[in-house]
């Protein structure tokens, strides 16, 4: 059963099964108990060719780690990552490098994703230069072609990143990402660091490029409005686990998980006519070190029940193409109800210490 609720497609471009990624925390002193940051726990998903897959969540939810695991930067502690059918992390170095060249990434911060000492020309041609096998003239042509595609001029070729605005730098980053014609592009919050008015430009550019080159995107964001607009499938993550998953039309039409609902209500609407129900979550996002045993959201959930603290919630299909991991939705068994697990917990105490030093 695939996590995004789709029927098994015979050859998804990227597939993750039960992937977990844990990082060890440096011990305060030797022989103290070893602690782990459970960045990602048991996430499965399937991404088909040509689609845009959205991963939604806030800081600490593991979305960046998940993205890194997808592109071969972080080997998972458990589970497999399959790209075009091959287990990515079991490939031989040469095949691994070749597979990785089919993937690229666009980063969140436009100011640190370009080397300030490189000219625009150097930056964009770099992937091609590293791969080798192309003459300077060929590379220059390709770079010029891409510059035009992303909306910059030829005279920008020998300028330095410091001459450009955030939106323009992001475009340079996009040009760099597509020069080798990758099949798979991970966009890690590509517009979060930019002004709202520039979002539209960059997003339109990305969708244009996707259509003309049949690219597959993984779009990571915490802005649901954007995700709704461009993603076909999505995954909502909190503290390393999947809370809700499925086709985005289904999820937005009927958001079931309390966290999804809170995210939706947190989006400030500028529609003057509508007053939406606001769900304000108490407390801060807790630290991913030694997360709670049960549902990881229970401490901030306005609908938490006694059982949520100890029994983990699994993704359950509630309708075709829509899965939710929540006890409120899937209910408790009769045996659990008998013990009183379904009693709601009275107002949540705010969690003790927010993010401890990691």
């Amino acid at each position, binding site marked *: 059963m695939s996590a995004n609720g789709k029927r098994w497609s015979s050859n998804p471009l990227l597939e993750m099964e039960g992937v977990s990624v844990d990082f060890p925390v440096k011990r305060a002193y030797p022989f103290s108990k070893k602690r782990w940051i459970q960045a990602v726990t048991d996430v499965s998903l399937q991404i088909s060719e040509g689609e845009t897959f959205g991963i939604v969540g*806030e800081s600490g939810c593991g979305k960046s780690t998940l993205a890194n695991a997808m592109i071969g930067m972080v080997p998972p502690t458990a589970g497999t990552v399959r790209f075009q059918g091959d287990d990515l992390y079991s490939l031989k170095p040469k095949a691994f490098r070749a597979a990785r060249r089919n993937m690229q990434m666009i980063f969140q911060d436009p100011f640190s994703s370009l080397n300030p000492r490189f000219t625009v020309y150097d930056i964009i041609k770099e992937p091609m230069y590293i791969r080798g096998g192309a003459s300077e003239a060929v590379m220059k042509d390709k770079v010029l072609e891409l510059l035009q595609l992303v909306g910059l001029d030829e005279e920008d070729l020998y300028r330095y990143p410091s001459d450009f605005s955030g939106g323009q730098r992001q475009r340079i980053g996009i040009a760099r990402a597509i020069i080798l014609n990758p099949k798979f592009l991970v966009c890690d919050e590509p517009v979060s660091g930019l002004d*709202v008015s520039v979002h*539209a430009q960059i997003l339109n550019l990305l969708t244009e490029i996707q259509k003309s080159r049949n690219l597959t995107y993984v779009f990571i964001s915490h802005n649901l409005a954007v995700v*709704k607009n461009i993603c076909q499938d999505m995954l909502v993550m909190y503290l390393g686990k999947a809370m809700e998953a499925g086709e985005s039309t289904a999820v937005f039409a009927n958001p079931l998980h309390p966290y999804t609902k809170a995210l939706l*209500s*947190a*989006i400030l609407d*500028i529609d003057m006519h509508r007053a939406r129900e606001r769900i304000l979550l108490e407390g801060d996002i807790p630290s991913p070190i030694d997360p709670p045993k049960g549902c990881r959201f229970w401490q901030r959930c306005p609908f938490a029940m006694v059982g949520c603290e100890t029994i983990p919630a699994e993704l359950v299909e509630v309708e075709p193409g829509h899965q939710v991991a929540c006890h409120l939705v899937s209910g408790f068994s009769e045996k659990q109800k008998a013990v009183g697990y379904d009693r709601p917990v009275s107002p949540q105490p705010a969690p003790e210490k927010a993010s401890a030093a990691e």
Partner: protein
Amino acid sequence: MTETVLEVRNLKVAFPCAGGVIRAVEGIDLVTKKGECVALVGESGCGKSVTALSIMKLLRTPPSVSRIDKLELDGRDLTHLTDRDMERVRGKDMAIIFQDAMTALNPVMTVGKQIDEVYRRHTKLGKKEAREQTIRALELVGVPEPRSRAKAFPHELSGGMRQRVLIALAFACMPKLIIADEPTTSLDVTIQAQVLDVLKSMQRNHDVSALLITHDLSVVANMADAVYVMYSGKIVGRAPKQQLFMDPLHPYTQGLLASVPRISDGKQAFVQIPDTVPHPMRKPSGCYFHPRCFRASDRCREHMPRLENLENGRQIRCWHPLHQERGA
């Protein structure tokens, strides 16, 4: 008639540098009434942060030069105040909330001590009383367990907590004016909602005027009463919030509104304003917005429109505002 708390008249700021002059702010006027939250909206590089710093007189003369005809805070003329006198005003009558809490707070002092400092500087309170006030302030902004949290260092707190500390710092002496420079831009969505809520309730409940500086119209929609729109150093429009959102007059405002992705829309392309903001050293002739404006005419290319006062407190700087037929 409610009184004016802040009046800024003809503020001009420039940054001379090796290649020319950066004309950051070109003669703007701002007015804030008591208890009102006024938003200053514009994209990055339009000069809004520089405006905030100028009002607080935090810009140093090299590298900036500024001229201002009048700066009045609650009837008191600050225009010619020396730095030393301004120090007594800042924090007490006027306060600022910066965007990045991590750099706005001193990393080697506990947050409690930093708030204590404000009290001890501006009021006659001793150490213990100041700490009591600090704890009360932290409680007010919704920091749980304020007594123990006051002893924490900034890096031990989460982003949302830090921002609340900044809010507590700003509201400590109940100033007449709070300037909030992109207070929630760097926060997560749910935390952003929380912090804005706190800011809004503090501002309303204590009848404090606020100048909110942001590029995010959704924040404006939820907090502001009146909105100034700024473009490339000039104010291009002013309107009460409802009217700005429902009935924008300036093409730039319309573009800004349209480019905000809505949750209620179906799948469609995002509306974008073409090109980018002009470089502050190389501004276009005539109206600064004309290269990106779909209503631009020859007049726009040659002459900069004046800021006209319309009824109901609206101002507009445009030769062809929306709702007018495109004349010659």
